[in-house]
């Protein structure tokens, strides 16, 4: 037992509190934010290494034995997600310096940024279902602030919708926890897993499982994504990157956790639901991605497609597909972070987010253009890049478990992703420049930043073998929940 596990939560929490007192000192705010974000990356690397060597880490808060106290559990999946979050968080923080503007920075932007990270890290590391709810709320309340900060008309309008949908889903979350507590009488996830298995997951527990699925699907944008395209178009690019890369992935992580640890005894019922939701998500997301001509919406529907794809990996629940889901999740956080940052740079360079009003950007910004092209190949899953390994594993797992239709939908959705991004590349970078003048802006700093992130994505693709040794360790725990239960309930 060591306190290492709580550091990823403690560092951004303390940073956020300190930043409240430094409202007017922008340089100091930025400095402290960067130091904190770098520290978080270092802590996450140490955590991943320790779990790689010593196995699952647990930490009982206040020394109370589980299931009586709150326990923090760091298995490989959680640690890898913490690491990826901290890397993406650092990149988006650096991008915020250039793009967010002093007005917003003065109104506690970095404080909310770090509170959002607290919620995300906490959701990944907690081993208690009600504590998960609380960390969800920490994350969501920070996101309400980030989505509305600045107070433009569009933001006010979209925030009221985003707020409403999340209040309803949080209410359902509490109701689901209440039902689960009444049915099995515990809140600790490992203990829940034992009790649900003992009770033999009958009708009542299946209903509760579906209620949890609805709650997390609302958060993750799995089929119930009607709120996502509008809401994620409202905030400035840096915030959009933060949301697109992190928020939906927390919902996905919650689905992975609940349906590989707690509700595993009747997959014929629960996993079929997930499978069809995943299929419908990929189709509808794909249609949305090809339908629009403005950058934020194309990106948002791409986020939805990848959510469907990971959910497909969860639904087939073979060792391969679960490994693939983890790999794809990690790749997708990095790649979607990069996608939104590049999109933000393109919008700044062109002075508009409508593709019809762009053209010929490749002559002015060749590096940016080819980076976007490389990103498109990554997201589709062309072999040397990082999207490939995860997709192959998920499709292979899908075929193994006999889900031919869904595998075809998954492959088909890749074509729609390719089409939507290449359309964007063609309209924005090829062709002739439009009549109006492009704004004169300095983009060297942010382009270098994006190049760094792209290098990381490529490294992840080229070094898939090394990454896979970590991913398969995460997959092991997902396949056999007994490992998780043993680690938590050992004493």
């Amino acid at each position, binding site marked *: 037992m060591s306190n290492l596990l709580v550091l990823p939560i403690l560092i951004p929490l303390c940073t956020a509190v300190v930043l409240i007192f430094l409202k007017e000192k922008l340089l100091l705010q930025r400095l402290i934010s960067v130091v904190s974000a770098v520290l978080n990356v270092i802590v996450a690397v140490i955590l991943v290494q320790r779990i790689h060597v010593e196995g699952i880490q647990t930490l009982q808060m206040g020394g109370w034995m589980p299931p009586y106290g709150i326990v923090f559990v760091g298995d490989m999946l959680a640690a890898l997600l913490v690491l990826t979050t901290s890397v993406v968080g650092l990149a988006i923080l650096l991008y915020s310096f250039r793009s967010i503007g002093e007005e917003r920075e003065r109104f506690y932007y970095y404080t909310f940024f770090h509170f959002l990270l607290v919620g995300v890290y906490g959701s990944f590391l907690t081993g208690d279902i009600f504590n998960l709810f609380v960390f969800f709320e920490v994350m969501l309340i920070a996101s309400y602030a980030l989505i509305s900060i600045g107070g433009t008309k569009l933001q*006010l309008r979209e925030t009221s919708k985003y*707020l409403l949908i999340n209040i*309803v889903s*949080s209410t359902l979350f*509490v109701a689901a926890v*209440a*039902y689960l*507590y009444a049915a099995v009488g515990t809140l600790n996830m490992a203990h829940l897993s034992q009790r649900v298995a003992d009770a033999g997951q009958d009708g009542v527990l299946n209903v509760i499982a579906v209620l949890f699925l609805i709650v997390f699907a609302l958060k993750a944008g799995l089929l119930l994504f009607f709120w996502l395209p509008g809401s994620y178009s409202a905030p400035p690019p840096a915030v959009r990157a933060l949301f697109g890369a992190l928020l939906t992935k927390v919902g996905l992580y919650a689905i992975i956790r609940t349906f590989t640890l707690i509700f595993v005894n009747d997959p014929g019922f629960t996993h079929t639901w997930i499978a069809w939701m995943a299929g419908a998500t990929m189709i509808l997301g794909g249609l949305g991605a090809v339908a629009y001509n403005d950058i934020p919406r194309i990106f948002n529907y791409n986020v939805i497609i990848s959510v469907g794809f990971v959910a497909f990996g969860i639904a087939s629940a073979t060792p391969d597909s679960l490994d693939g889901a983890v790999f794809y999740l990690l790749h997708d956080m990095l790649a979607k972070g990069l996608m939104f940052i590049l999109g933000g740079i393109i919008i700044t360079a062109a002075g508009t987010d409508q593709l019809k009003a762009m053209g010929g950007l490749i002559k002015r910004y060749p590096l940016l253009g080819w980076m976007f092209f490389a990103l498109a190949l990554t997201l589709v899953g062309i072999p040397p890049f990082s999207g490939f390994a995860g997709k192959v594993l998920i499709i292979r797992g899908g075929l193994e478990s006999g889900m031919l239709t869904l595998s075809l939908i998954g492959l088909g959705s890749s074509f729609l992703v390719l089409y939507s991004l290449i359309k964007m590349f063609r309209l924005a970078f090829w062709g002739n420049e439009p009549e109006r003048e492009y704004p004169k802006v300095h983009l060297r700093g942010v382009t270098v930043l994006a190049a760094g992130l792209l290098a990381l994505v490529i490294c992840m693709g080229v070094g898939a073998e090394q990454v896979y040794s970590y991913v398969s360790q995460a997959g092991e725990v997902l396949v056999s929940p007994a490992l998780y239960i043993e680690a938590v309930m050992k004493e």
Partner: protein
Amino acid sequence: MELIMAVAVGILFTVGVYLILSKSLLRIVLGTSLLTHGVHLLLLTMAGLKTGAAPVLGGQAEAYVDPLPQALILTSIVISFGVTAFFFVLAYRAYQTLGTDEMDSLKGEEQ
């Protein structure tokens, strides 16, 4: 007793959902607070309404009521309190800036 509470929770949910589906933003905020009331009562009910002393150890009672759901409800109450306060202020700002509280006129694509 649980049955009566279940019916009460059901009514709160029904009214909450009805209000959320209405057109004025203010009625929607009221709907969400009724919904959270319902869910807090549900949490209390689902943990059992057996008679017992209040969960304070000085009472020397034979049995106590379950203290855990009370702690959960307390947590959930303050969270929903914070969120509702934010929602009200947001509705106020939206009314000032957009000049309407009709959800119908918050549609569309324009900036």
